[in-house]
């Protein structure tokens, strides 16, 4: 196995954990909302606050680090459109997801743990899940750009 193949394996695996996990979290978000039980939304908020920081964030860092190694090892040009679009998309999603959504999700989960679930907090979690949905669309668009590599 070459070092390029190793970076590619780690890059794809980390992207799977991050994007696949986020899509599954969306499904759980829809199910929690449909249940009409604020307690379920509370549990989801707590879970996503934890998973966001300890699973998604490390995965996002591995994705960008191994992506950089792939560019270097594979003799790709840093000016390739798919590299620039990938890095831009990554930066936008990471800033919004870990700078806002995950933090707020953790706060909502902590409030629910302290005050108990309420329709207001359930609605807050619902809004954050909706923002996360937009970020997933951006992530899937990045996957598309990585696969198709327009301009190469």
């Amino acid at each position, binding site marked *: 196995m070459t070092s390029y193949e190793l970076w590619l394996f780690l890059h794809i695996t980390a992207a799977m954990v991050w*994007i*696949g996990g986020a899509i*599954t979290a969306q499904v759980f978000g829809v199910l929690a909302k449909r249940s009409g039980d604020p307690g379920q939304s509370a549990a989801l908020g707590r879970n996503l606050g934890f998973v966001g920081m300890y699973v998604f964030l490390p995965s996002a860092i591995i994705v960008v680090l191994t992506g950089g190694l792939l560019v270097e090892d594979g003799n790709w040009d840093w000016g390739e459109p798919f590299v620039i679009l990938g890095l831009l998309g990554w930066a936008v999603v990471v800033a919004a997801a870990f700078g806002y959504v995950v933090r707020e999700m953790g706060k909502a989960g902590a409030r629910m743990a302290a005050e108990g679930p309420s329709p207001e907090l359930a609605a807050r979690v619902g809004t954050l899940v909706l923002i996360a949905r937009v970020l997933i669309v951006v992530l899937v668009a990045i996957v598309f750009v990585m696969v198709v590599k327009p301009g190469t």
Partner: protein
Amino acid sequence: MSWSELLLFVHVSVAVIWVGGGLMMQFFAIRASMSGDPARTATLGEDIG
């Protein structure tokens, strides 16, 4: 975009959902189990099933 690229995109996307989703369910299950609340584990089981 060629058919091959389209199929590759679909292939990668569904693999991402399958593998990443499975792993996420494991994390949720561990947290539900650690909470000591049988109702939470039951709800999760219901959602996964």
